[in-house]
């Protein structure tokens, strides 16, 4: 059992969140529901206001606001919170003696309203602690208006992709700072700068609702982690927000508070829908049960193997090293035979020394630390003249694979060592980064110089088109995180996930990047990015029930842009975690 922490000091995908029962949830909600949410500033007083919410698809609800932050609806009376952002008021409340609640965004100019129904338990979320939400758009029929009365003539609030491609730093009035990337129309990626220490990014399903040209409503459900629900209404021009956080943190403490935030613009990247398409909610499930949408839950489809099962699968199926074409390399460069006939050694810092004899275009002999020679299969790609990425199976107790970038013109080499039998799932790849020098005929001695970790890519995003119909976008979101988004047929950003990453500069505009698909698919992905040709060559290291495979990766790139102001918030964060 991991140590109980509200905000764990281990990656969230490693934290063992309690599987709270609905009774535990109900008990935790009982008192806060009656009191209403907490807040760092006084709430707006809506006493005397009646909001009759009329939203398409939802039951009509009449809220009568009373003095002292009380509200009645139906037969219930409870506390509420309300914060105003310009002409929109955000209202939050829980239904007493239930596990349900509401958030309401009410536009006081024209009475358009978005009603968000919230609940724990009863699905579609698989666990009681994960907040469900259903979103309805309509209007508030009320006597208290500033600009009119009754049903507005304008279109209701609606899902949108207008936020897609932006990123902001939000500083809440409780002191918490979060970098929120919005690279998808259905997911988002966030980095907690204060409550979590690593500067690691995580991805979660999100809603983006257009209230006005300036004002947008954003939500994320921290599915697969705590299940917390975080939302705010943001003013994209003034970079102000008001929001609500509801759910249970890592210590199973209820968080139910509203906040005001101040934003900083971090930049924006391209989006790829047809020009003029501003539609949203691309992963909706309109025929599903209330609150349903497509939520990527990678552990559901991940094989989880023990070390014994890994050994057995490798014994049965072997290790497939560049044995077949991969859809992840449909647009890849052809392998190079330029290493054939060459011999050199790589002396890694820390002592490991590997000698290589490249016997042919795909046959290599290698030995470690002066041991016996081993013959194996390799593939190499010369991504920039004089720079090769090659990979081969090493073996050993953890079934290592070496993926090496060798710059024969500078004498520097970097290896991403992939290995299995990590402490979590034996088939999940771990990785470490080894720096070294190349020793061989006609190869210059680089002395103590090495390739170095870099922050050059942080904040950048590239699309990678691997094969027809198979394109993703990488967002290099922090020094230790790579996030990836896949597109829907309409080229909306769709599902997004992320894992540990590391970034090494090989030459100007040439970068060696790895990411680990932890608690996801277990793959170690590596690519050598050539920003001059906008092409990459890479190698995937993956273990599954069908054995261990080392496969090519190759794709055409587009530079989606750069969140150019994000780095100052992340430059102190460490990169290159081994697992």
């Amino acid at each position, binding site marked *: 059992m991991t140590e109980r922490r509200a905000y764990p000091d281990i990656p969230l995908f490693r934290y063992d969140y309690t599987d709270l029962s609905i009774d535990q949830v109900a008990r935790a909600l009982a008192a806060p529901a009656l009191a209403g949410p907490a807040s760092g500033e006084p709430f707006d007083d809506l006493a005397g206001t009646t909001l009759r919410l009329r939203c398409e698809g939802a039951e009509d609800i009449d809220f009568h606001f009373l003095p002292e932050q009380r509200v009645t609806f139906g037969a219930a009376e409870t506390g509420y919170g309300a914060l105003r952002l310009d002409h929109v008021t955000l209202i939050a409340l829980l239904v007493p003696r239930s596990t349900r609640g509401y958030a309401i965004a009410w536009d006081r100019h024209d009475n358009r309203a978005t009603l968000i129904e919230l609940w724990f338990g009863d699905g579609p979320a698989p666990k009681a602690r994960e907040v469900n939400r259903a979103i309805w758009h309509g209007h508030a029929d009320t006597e208290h208006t500033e600009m009119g009365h009754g049903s507005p003539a304008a279109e209701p609030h609606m899902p949108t992709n207008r936020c897609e491609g932006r990123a902001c730093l939000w500083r809440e009035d409780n002191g918490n700072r979060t970098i929120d990337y919005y690279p998808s129309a259905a997911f988002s990626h966030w980095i907690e700068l204060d409550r979590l220490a690593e500067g690691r990014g995580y991805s979660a399903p999100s809603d983006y609702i257009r209230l006005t040209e300036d004002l947008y409503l954003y939500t994320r459900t921290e599915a697969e982690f705590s299940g917390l629900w975080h939302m705010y209404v943001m003013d994209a021009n003034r970079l102000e927000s008001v929001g609500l956080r509801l759910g249970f943190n890592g210590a199973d403490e209820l968080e139910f508070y509203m906040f005001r935030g101040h934003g900083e613009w971090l930049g924006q990247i391209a989006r790829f829908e047809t020009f003029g398409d501003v539609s949203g909610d691309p992963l909706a499930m309109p025929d599903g049960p209330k609150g349903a949408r*497509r939520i990527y839950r990678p552990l559901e489809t991940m094989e989880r193997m023990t070390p014994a099962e890994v050994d057995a699968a490798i014994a049965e199926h072997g290790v497939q090293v560049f044995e077949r074409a991969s859809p992840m390399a449909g647009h890849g460069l052809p392998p190079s035979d330029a290493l054939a006939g060459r011999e050199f050694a790589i002396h890694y810092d820390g002592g490991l020394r590997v000698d290589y004899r490249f016997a042919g275009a795909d046959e290599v002999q290698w030995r470690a630390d002066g041991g016996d020679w081993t013959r194996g299969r390799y593939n190499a790609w010369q991504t920039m003249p004089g720079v090769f990425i090659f990979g081969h199976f090493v073996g050993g107790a953890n079934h290592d694979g070496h993926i090496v970038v060798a710059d024969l013109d500078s004498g520097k080499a970097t290896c991403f060592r992939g290995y299995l039998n990590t402490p979590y799932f034996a088939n999940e790849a771990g990785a470490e980064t080894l720096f070294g020098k190349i020793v061989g005929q006609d190869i210059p001695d680089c002395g103590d110089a090495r390739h170095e970790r870099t922050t050059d890519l942080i904040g950048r995003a590239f699309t990678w088109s691997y094969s*027809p*119909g*198979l394109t993703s976008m990488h967002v290099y979101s922090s020094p230790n995180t790579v996030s990836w988004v*896949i597109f829907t047929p309409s080229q909306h950003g769709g599902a997004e996930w992320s894992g540990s990453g590391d970034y090494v500069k090989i030459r100007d505009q040439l970068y060696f990047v790895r990411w680990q698909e932890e608690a996801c*698919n277990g793959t170690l992905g590596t690519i050598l990015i050539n920003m001059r040709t906008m092409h990459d060559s890479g190698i995937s290291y993956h273990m599954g029930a*069908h054995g261990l495979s080392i496969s090519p990766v190759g794709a055409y790139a587009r530079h989606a842009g750069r969140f150019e102001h994000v780095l100052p918030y992340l430059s102190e964060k460490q990169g290159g975690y081994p697992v």
Partner: protein
Amino acid sequence: MTSTRRDALKLGALAAAPIAALAPVAALAADDSAARLARLEDERAVAGLVRMFVRRFNGDGDCSSFVASSSAIRIDPQVCHIREDAGHDPLLAFAADGNSATWQSRAQVDLQTNFAGDSTLEKMARFQGQGSAVTRASRQIDASLSRSGQGWTITRLTIA
């Protein structure tokens, strides 16, 4: 697993039924105009046969009634739709005895790639309901045909 057109071809009952009954050209060689008429009718029959093959391929996929044997067809299993390319005239050549012919034409074909692998992106694509992708490519149809007692039959057809 998505079945392919080729699967359907394999599975269909191979009746090899002739398409059009025509008098042999050679038999009518003495009468030049009759021979030309017969040739025109042969051309029309062969073109119609290829067209019907394409139409059936795009429909239920069971083209067995147009071919001589199950091994007559060699089409990439990724091909899921064929469109005749009107920008290129087909080439049709008859053997001297008029009992066999070869056909060449260009086509735009849709190639379906199923994302059935275990890479993360393929899994994510399947999660989003995108289990496959379709791309369009220009290909050449090459066919050999023979005349049987009652009409023309495809003895070999490739799309490459």
